[in-house]
């Protein structure tokens, strides 16, 4: 079957230049994941001495372009949709692929949101290149103009370093939350080229009936997270965890198996396939510290772990480690914090009355 060919390596790799970033947006605002990618794209482009180019599709692209420019985008290529408002993987794949055929990017970064994953997979097929999905760190190799990407291996201890030497663009995704938000640049210097595009026929057979914004627990901006893993013993094990989280005005997180077991909803999952968090304080109770969990929380400022196994891998990733039963230690910590707060409150009161 000739049309089922996989990937094609272009002959003249040097024709492929610049770091492209897909600027996923809604109502004139770039998504957090896309901003993170823009920040990474900027870093890599500087290293490779190339430009960072933003691709924007939708409506209200002026606002999107201004925001991208403020984060250091060098060029913005926009497709302003005159007859359609919303996301369509069919239409967007075609528009982005046209940009790729025309512009020949060296590197293409897409946020690994649900929308991004639909897109990147379809674009990869259309443009006959590969995708490294869910990368957790990126760097540029200026000598070979290559993107170096890291992602957790299938095992649970190591990280793979990945290169795409012969195919272009070198395409990758990272889950939203993987990187810090970039800093704004002092003097934006960005050219914007927006063309009007009619999607017409492309989405005619694919009607969008309703768009409803969704509210969901967002751990990516939480300051304090107390997480439970299999070591908490059962759904009831989350009771002391919730208590401590409440005491600290934080949120509750979880490892994947406890989500799979239905002890707590998916929106609490931290890790490679859950949310990537970077709180000031992360407490891991009864979590072993497999790599897929670690990559989702290793950027936390302070990490405290509680585990009955003194050799659990999490020890290596902790600032403080209590070798104890999770339920007991968490409950004691909650008590201790509450006592302290109470004593403090009394002190503050007595100062006021004095």
């Amino acid at each position: 079957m000739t049309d089922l060919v996989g990937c094609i390596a272009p002959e003249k790799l040097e024709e492929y230049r610049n770091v492209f970033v897909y600027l996923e947006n809604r109502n004139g605002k770039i998504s957090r994941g896309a901003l993170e990618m823009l920040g990474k794209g900027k870093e890599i482009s500087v290293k490779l001495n190339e430009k960072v180019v933003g691709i924007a599709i939708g409506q209200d692209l002026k606002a999107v372009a201004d925001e991208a420019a403020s984060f250091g985008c060098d060029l913005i290529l926009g497709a302003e949709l005159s007859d359609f408002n919303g996301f369509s993987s069919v239409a967007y794949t075609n528009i982005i692929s046209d940009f790729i055929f025309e512009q020949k990017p060296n590197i293409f970064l897409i946020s690994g949101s649900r929308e991004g994953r639909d897109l990147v997979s379809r674009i990869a097929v259309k443009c006959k290149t590969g995708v490294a999905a869910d990368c957790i760190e990126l760097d540029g190799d200026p000598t070979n103009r290559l993107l170096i990407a890291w992602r957790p291996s299938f095992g649970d201890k190591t990280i793979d370093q990945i290169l795409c030497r012969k195919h272009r663009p070198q395409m990758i995704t990272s889950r939203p939350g993987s990187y810090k938000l970039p800093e704004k640049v002092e003097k934006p210097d960005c050219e914007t080229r927006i063309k009007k595009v009619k999607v017409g026929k492309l989405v005619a057979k694919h009607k969008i009936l309703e768009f409803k914004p969704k509210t969901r627990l967002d751990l990516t901006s939480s300051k304090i997270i107390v997480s439970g893993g299999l070591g908490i013993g059962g759904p009831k094990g989350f009771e002391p965890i919730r208590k401590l989280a409440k005491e600290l005005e934080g949120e509750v997180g979880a490892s994947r198996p406890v989500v799979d077991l239905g002890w707590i909803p998916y929106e609490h999952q931290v890790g490679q396939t859950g949310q990537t968090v970077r709180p000031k304080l992360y407490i891991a109770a009864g979590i072993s510290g497999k790599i897929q969990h670690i990559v989702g929380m290793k950027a936390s400022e302070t990490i405290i772990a509680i585990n009955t196994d003194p050799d659990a891998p999490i020890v290596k990733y902790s600032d403080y480690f209590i070798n104890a039963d999770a339920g007991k230690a968490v409950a004691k910590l909650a008590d201790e914090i509450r006592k302290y707060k109470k004593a403090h409150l009394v002190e503050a009161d007595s100062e006021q009355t004095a």
Partner: protein
Amino acid sequence: MALNIIVLIKQIVDIDLLKVNPSTGSPEVQNLPLRLENLSKNAVEEAVRIKEKNGGKIYAICFGTEKSSSAMKEAFAMGVDEGFVITGYQGNDPARTSMVLAEKIRAIPHDIVLLGNQSAESYTGLLPGKISRILGERLLSNAIKIEIVNGRARATMAMESETVTAETQLPAVISVTQEINEPRLPPVMQILQAGRKPMNVSATGIKEVTPNKIISNIAPKSERRKIVFEDIEKGIPEVAKAIREASR
């Protein structure tokens, strides 16, 4: 309207039982029990529900190994009518897997292709997009609800920041999320009959395609303080203090 439904199923090693070889640090997947992956069960369940409402026939395709007939039998017990096992799976390579599956899908006249939105093994979630693009069919992704209305597929999709309800012509590829349904426990009669349903086994000729190469595989460095408390009574006040400092 009777529908031909294809459901893509995946067999995985029981990840909960996965052990890592302590000297090499790589996972040992040999000799682990295999089972039908969770999201594949959601996809099969949805196929059965669509058939119950609209009539038709359900085919399942599994790209796996000689051992995949057990996963196929699980799918038969849940209500799949005919199965295709393609052998030659060599590990996670979405580019290759999507080509192998697309080739088989094309050979079967169909209205709907159902699959999980990601797999419990890789979670990269690239297959639905790749397959739909290779087939040139519409994609409804991350469905939490599917209806067939006037010969078209209507799905409510849980996207990153919104839920979208969209409708498309058939044939279409639809990926489902875990929330879409509660997979049934197969009735005993169906388990007993599962062995009698037609199962076609063939090998794929499609070779490795992924252009990405792994050039190193290492454990990440960690520069944490690693202060260990063996005694809980000593540890609690110290750690409570650390918590207060960290959360300031």
